[in-house]
């Protein structure tokens, strides 16, 4: 088919470079974000390769302590703020939200483009702080180390993250207004795909929590730059104030990272089980419950920091409660398989992998919410293992599942299925080998953020590093075959998965304005019949 014969879609409507840099099309902006977060992912990943190599031996023999400390800071900062937080909302959310609700675009298309530029600006400032010598405070910037004692580019990095926060806030605002005002006729709240509910809950957190981070980073910069005592006790400040402010944002932030991923799973499982989702309203409510209760648990990061005993009790109690809605989702997804018709294509492998690994990671969260246990494992590798199970075993697997699921819609091409399944398997195995030993290391007492450790910890560290190398291969494979598929992948057609949802009722790739006329919705979400495909 020659270029002139191809139907017009959002990709080929204009090939000029500036049509991409000045686009207000939510689909193109989603693609811009996808390229951006992928680049950041590999930067953060490269740091991890280096420090996992260092950790293969007990002595610090590959890099200096100063370098090691910059590497883990880089890894955390880039992965949290420039990969995990934007990934699903800004890539898949941007691409899919208008399509899923039957709209032509988001409520504020130009603001959407601005969000991307803000992320780029923040990212460049942060990368500058890294290239110009790095920062060694950890992604958590605890004071007074970061505000007074560190000799590294703290202010520049804080400014970079500060800027990027506005990208989140504007995206959240855009999504909330879009969901309220641009739903097609008949698309009632309870007919919305659960991915939309997840994005909505995430957007509430974006808008309410991110400003607190912005101010906290600003306060560090002010203290560092002007010597005003905010966090340093020698200047009359209180270091714990920082921790309260920081975690008030950063705990909800972890729900920003996981809620959209849960939304992706809620889309994939019904499709590949050919079954209506079990407990739609419960899953939708659970997203909102997680977002709300998530604002009330920040003190569980501070059980041994000097917080009062009673505050510790309250935060432990609330942290136990926040686990319940997550459990509800896991049970409902599993129940969706019952009396379904299950096939295990790549997106489903990622979704099922998410459920298993998120369950394990989430349950270890209960270990940490239990005060007596947390006192022992706080600031050890147990914590590192816990959050990587959720962030990598959960959020990243959800992201990859979503990328594979909607790849045909975004590009018009299928990815090679067997390579997809192989990579999912390699990632699953590599991931578990990397992070499961870290639970054991944590309970043994290995602290975080050390480049040297006692000899007895070596065997488990070698296992973890070996797993990391496998995981790295697992991530490089999709990069390769997805790019390959852009030219050589099988043409996909509008609905290769026979999935339900308005996005599948458009061509692949969709035209610039999505729908030739506004669709009218007269059925529930997930209208799957298990025996619709010939059995």
């Amino acid at each position: 088919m020659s270029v002139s014969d191809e139907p017009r879609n959002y990709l080929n409507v204009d090939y000029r470079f500036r049509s991409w840099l000045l686009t207000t099309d939510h689909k193109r902006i989603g693609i811009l974000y996808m390229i951006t977060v992928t680049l950041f992912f590999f930067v953060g990943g490269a740091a991890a390769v280096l420090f996992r190599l260092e950790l293969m031996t007990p002595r610090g023999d590959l890099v200096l302590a100063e370098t090691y400390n910059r590497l883990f800071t880089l890894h955390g900062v880039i992965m949290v703020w420039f990969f995990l937080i934007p990934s699903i909302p800004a890539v898949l959310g941007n691409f899919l939200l208008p399509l899923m609700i039957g709209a032509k675009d988001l409520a504020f298309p130009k603001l959407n483009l601005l969000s991307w530029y803000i992320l780029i600006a923040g990212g460049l400032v942060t990368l500058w702080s890294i290239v110009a010598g790095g920062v060694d405070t950890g992604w958590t910037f605890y004071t007074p180390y970061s505000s007074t004692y560190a000799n590294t580019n703290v202010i520049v990095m804080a400014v970079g993250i500060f800027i990027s926060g506005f990208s989140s806030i504007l995206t959240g605002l855009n999504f909330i207004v879009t969901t309220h005002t641009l739903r097609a006729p008949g698309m009632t709240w309870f007919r919305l795909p659960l991915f939309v509910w997840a994005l909505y809950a995430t957007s509430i957190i974006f808008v309410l929590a991110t400003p607190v981070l912005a101010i906290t980073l600003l306060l560090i910069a002010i203290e560092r730059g002007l010597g005003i005592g905010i966090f340093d006790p020698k200047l009359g400040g209180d270091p714990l104030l920082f921790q309260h402010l920081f975690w008030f944002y950063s705990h909800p932030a972890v729900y920003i990272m996981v809620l959209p991923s849960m939304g992706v799973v809620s889309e994939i499982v019904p499709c590949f089980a050919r079954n209506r989702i079990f407990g739609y309203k419960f899953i939708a409510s659970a997203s909102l419950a997680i977002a709300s209760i998530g604002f009330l648990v920040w003190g569980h990061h501070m059980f041994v920091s000097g917080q009062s005993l009673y505050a510790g009790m309250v935060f432990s109690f609330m942290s136990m409660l926040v686990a319940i809605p997550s459990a509800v989702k896991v049970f409902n997804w599993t129940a969706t398989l019952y009396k379904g018709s299950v096939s295990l294509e790549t997106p489903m492998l990622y979704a099922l992998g998410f459920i298993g690994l998120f369950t394990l990671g989430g349950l270890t969260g209960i270990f940490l919410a239990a005060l007596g246990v947390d006192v022992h494992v706080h600031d050890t590798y147990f914590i590192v293992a816990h959050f990587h199970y959720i962030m990598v075993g959960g959020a990243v697997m959800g992201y990859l599942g979503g990328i594979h699921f909607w790849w045909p819609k975004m590009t018009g091409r299928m990815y090679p299925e067997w390579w997809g399944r192989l990579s999912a398997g390699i990632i699953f195995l590599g991931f578990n080998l990397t992070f499961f030993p870290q639970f054991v290391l944590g309970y043994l007492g290995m602290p975080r953020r050390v480049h040297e450790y006692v000899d007895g910890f070596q065997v488990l560290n070698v296992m973890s590093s070996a797993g990391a190398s496998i995981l790295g291969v697992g991530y490089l494979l999709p990069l390769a075959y997805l790019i390959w598929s852009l030219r050589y992948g099988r043409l996909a057609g509008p609905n290769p998965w026979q999935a339900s949802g308005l996005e599948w009722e458009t061509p692949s790739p969709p035209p610039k304005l999505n729908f030739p006329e506004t669709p009218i919705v007269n059925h529930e979400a997930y209208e799957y019949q298990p025996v619709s495909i010939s059995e």
Partner: protein
Amino acid sequence: MNEGFQLFPEQASTFASRVDALYFFLLLVAGFFTMLILASIVFLSLYYRRGAIRNRQRTHSQKAWILEFTWIAIPLVLVMVIFAWGADIYFDERAIPPNAIELRVVGKQWMWKIQHPQGRSEINELHIPLGRPVRLQMISEDVIHSFYVPEFRVKMDVLPGRYSSMWFEATKTGVYHLFCAEYCGTGHAAMEGSVHVMQPSDYAAWLAGGEQQPPVTAGQELFTRFRCNSCHFQDTQPRGPSLANLYEQPVRLSDGTVVTADDQYLRESILNPAAKVVAGFQSIMPTYQNQLSEEQIFQLIQYIKSLSTMPATTKEPAPLTQPVQPKPAEPGEIK
């Protein structure tokens, strides 16, 4: 110290077995639910795989609510049990026994300095007796550190500007790892040390072996050197409040509130005297910030604490010419 490969840390304190018991219960619960979900997914994916001839007729709705309620209620009960159990341990970890041996710890980039009340001090090593509660009162000279002994299952952050405390009772002799568990800069990994748990008689011998001065004596010397006695011990028109029998007693402040003269109060009053002015006195005390290290502040507080062993019938103590000595320990007795 066990330097070899281990999968589980030793239990060396009274807390260890309690924490481990909760941990094993959690492993059981987590293992059960993980296996349940894993097995369900594997079974359902296989049994209902595409192409398998199965009964897929769905009968619905009433049962769905019962199921949802059940799988909310059961986890809720479980997490509440876990909460209560964990809180119970935590509560006891924070309740310092009154007969604990009191040690003072200063954390700084990048070492631990530990002071025993009888005089010996150590760096990156902690010697304690078996079977006695030990309380560490800790402070940092710079950034936040965290004192962590994995085999005791306890840690506590060590903060600048504020005392934090932890306690433990060792149940097994041996040498155990001490780590700094709060990232504190370049030398964070180097803040590693050892805890030596000894038989009480060995500990007493070890205590007697040092050449260092008891902190209370050093505190008294500081008290004189920094002329504290010029305001705080005068027969007539004292410029500063009496420090005799002050320690851990209530103090009325000029704004009407009443606080307890604990370590934190005394430290603050030395470094920032204007923060809490005692009722009936002018705010004329100069600050000693940047003139005293945290260890010297510990020593001064030990001295002030020793002034509470004065019998209640004496008036204001005379300007000191004789040092006030605590009663020396009998052989074998541990203070």
